[in-house]
């Protein structure tokens, strides 16, 4: 039965074949016959093709030089990227004024990078600055014309700077509009609700290209005589309308997730509709959907490439024109790989951030 002298048994280490890297290999790579075959075949393929890619991209590539003549080897011609880098980043911006774009990049970095650190205290402040003061300051910097800055017309804007402007303004403008639409869609007033539903479903149901065409071609027709928007503004209007519909759905998800008790408590305290929205509901809802907002931003960031179809020189178009420039031949792969890598870095970083946020918010939000 039982032994009164019983002592707890010591914890032993597991059998050697089941842990450490041996155990890992046995479990993950060769756990069955078909698995082992797969591992071998894929392993060989990876090594073979991986080596060739590495060779092309690094070992045989040309890094130093100035023009096509310096790209003699069979590897990648990174010289192309280096010589066109200014164009990719700044577009047609006058050389003398490029420092203004650099200041804008610098401000952006300062406002964003602290968010990646856990213990940073002023995240909320920096977040607010990012969506209020930063666009205004950037606008002034880039446009010029006041404060002693040389005016630079918008058709000289291009490259990565233009991409960032488009994405940022798009999100910053779409957010308040989206919030209003989301509130409207949940309204008790049937007309308001109807208008908002129609607006949202309209913009969500059509491709962005058609919206851009519409903005580019039809907008001048809608405006009274003499009033004309430049191309960039038209694109921004189209993008904003389009994004606000998606943003509205994201915010609506947040509003739906707030327990009814919050709405009731706010009402019970005597706060009217707008006050309770502003002070109680929206702060909670928006915090909940920050991951969704970041995801929308990622989508918008990728979608800014579409404006090249209406003639704006964002970063992909700068790459296109560089590739077809007669001074360079056969650099399409290098160009698109580089542009793809730039986008990938931005988007991947943002998506990781959004995932981390989601995890944190999920554990923090106790029902």
């Amino acid at each position, binding site marked *: 039965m039982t032994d009164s002298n019983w002592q707890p048994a010591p914890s032993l280490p597991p059998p050697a074949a089941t842990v450490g890297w041996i155990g890992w290999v046995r*479990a*993950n*790579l060769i*756990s*069955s016959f078909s*698995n082992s075959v*797969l*591992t071998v075949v*894929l*392993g060989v393929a*990876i090594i073979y093709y991986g080596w060739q890619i590495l060779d092309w991209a690094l070992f045989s590539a040309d890094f130093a030089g100035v023009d096509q003549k310096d790209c003699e080897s069979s590897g990648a011609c990174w010289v192309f990227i280096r010589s066109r880098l200014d164009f990719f980043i700044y577009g047609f911006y006058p050389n003398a004024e490029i420092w203004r774009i650099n200041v804008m990049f610098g401000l952006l970095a300062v406002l964003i990078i602290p968010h990646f650190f856990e213990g940073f205290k002023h995240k909320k402040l920096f977040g607010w600055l990012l969506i209020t003061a930063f666009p205004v300051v950037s606008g002034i910097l880039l446009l010029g014309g006041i404060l002693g800055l040389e005016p630079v017309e918008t058709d000289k804007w291009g490259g990565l700077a233009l991409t960032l402007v488009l994405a940022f303004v798009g999100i910053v403008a779409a957010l308040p509009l989206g919030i209003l639409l989301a509130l409207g869609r949940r309204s*008790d*007033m*049937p*007309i*308001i609700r109807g*208008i908002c539903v129609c607006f949202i*479903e*309209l913009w*969500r*149901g*059509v*491709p*962005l*290209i*058609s919206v851009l*065409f*519409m903005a580019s*071609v*039809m907008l*001048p*027709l*809608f*405006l*009274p*005589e003499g009033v004309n928007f430049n191309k960039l503004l038209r694109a921004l209007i189209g993008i904003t309308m389009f994004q606000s519909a998606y943003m509205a759905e994201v915010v609506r998800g947040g509003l739906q997730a707030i327990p009814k008790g919050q709405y009731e408590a706010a009402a019970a305290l005597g706060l009217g509709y707008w006050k309770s929205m502003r002070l109680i509901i929206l702060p909670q809802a928006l915090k909940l959907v920050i991951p969704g907002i970041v995801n929308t931003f*990622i989508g918008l960031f*990728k*979608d800014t*490439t*579409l404006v*090249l*179809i209406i003639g704006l020189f964002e970063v*992909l178009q700068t790459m*296109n024109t560089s*590739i077809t420039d007669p001074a360079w031949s056969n650099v*399409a*792969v290098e160009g*698109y790989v580089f*542009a*793809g890598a730039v*986008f*990938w870095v931005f*988007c*991947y970083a943002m*998506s990781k951030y959004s995932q981390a946020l989601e995890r944190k918010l999920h554990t923090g939000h106790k029902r």
Partner: protein
Amino acid sequence: MADQQNTGGVTMPSKPPPWNDPVVRSIVFQIVALILLAWFFWTIFQNTLTNMETRGISTGFAFLNREAGFGILMSLIEYDESHTYGRTFVVGLLNTILVSVLGIIIATILGFVMGVARLSDNWIVARLASIYVETLRNIPLLLQLFFWYTAVLQALPGPRSSLKLSENIYLNNRGLNIPKPIFQDGFEFVWIALLVAIAGIFVLLRWATKRLDETGHTFPVFWTSVGLFIGLPLLVFLIMGLPLNFEVARATRFSLSGGANLIPEFIALLIGLSTYTAAFIAEIVRAGILAVSHGQTEAARSLGLRHGQTLQLIVIPQAMRVIIPPLTSQYLNLTKNSSLAAAIAYPDLVSVFAGTTLNQAGQALEIIGMVMAVYLSLSLGISFLMNLYNKKMALVER
């Protein structure tokens, strides 16, 4: 202190003055909103009319009957310059539908494979699938299209030095040249045999289910259906004396002639759309499978169900409920994204109708209106069907 009135013996709370009454306020607010909206549209309408008059742009849909005067690179129906603008609409629409349907099929297959692969036991398989998904999701589709079109397809050799993929299938920078099927007399029976085979499969399914219920024995329905689908038409084909010829490409002095050619714009768009959307579908499939709680698998295995049976009867039906709504969303995205064809000159609806026709006819309102109407009805239609499906499949709860 309470304001009470007497209405025929029953005391009711009195009505507040109109400016405080929420019902009145709501009505007034809505009326004001409607008026503002109406005024807004009216102003735009007026402006538009004035501007169009100034620029000499006409209105109405009569332009659809005017001669188009331009060629289209690829068309599923008869088309040349002498056809009308209206016909360009149809050609563009058919091209959009073609690339969307094919894209959806390929993306679904590829997406499901990648999604399941990400969950594989084999670390290499899982990592490769992850790399695929994370890479393609974070690069703009337009960039991927340019990559496929410019860097890959245009870099192919000219027709005279085509890559030979297999007997009579050639790849060059003019496209993919495959043998063109020429149907001869008697091939109709093969089509009929195919329809009969499909009907037969349904009958087979019903019979097999009945047999399972009655005797408890399963029947290899899948392989029998495949055999029927392929075998029956094949049999009829042989009986009819092989009524099918192929026109294959032959090398001429400067290029290839003959055969059916799939233009590189089509191929690039198809590859780009499919691979991009497949990455998103993979994530949806993975989330769907993970959403089925592990307890379900454990219960099924404890009851003695084998791995394949567990998947087929327990995991996949439950996973599909989670998968299908976002999956249709991706299908819609793919269809809308097909409009990027305009950037690589594939003649889809936007590119042909809102592009060339718009440039020539100038009637922006009607044209863009028509284009948006097409996409909008597609989106709304599919959303509606999706809502129906969701209601039907929702797990019945208290």
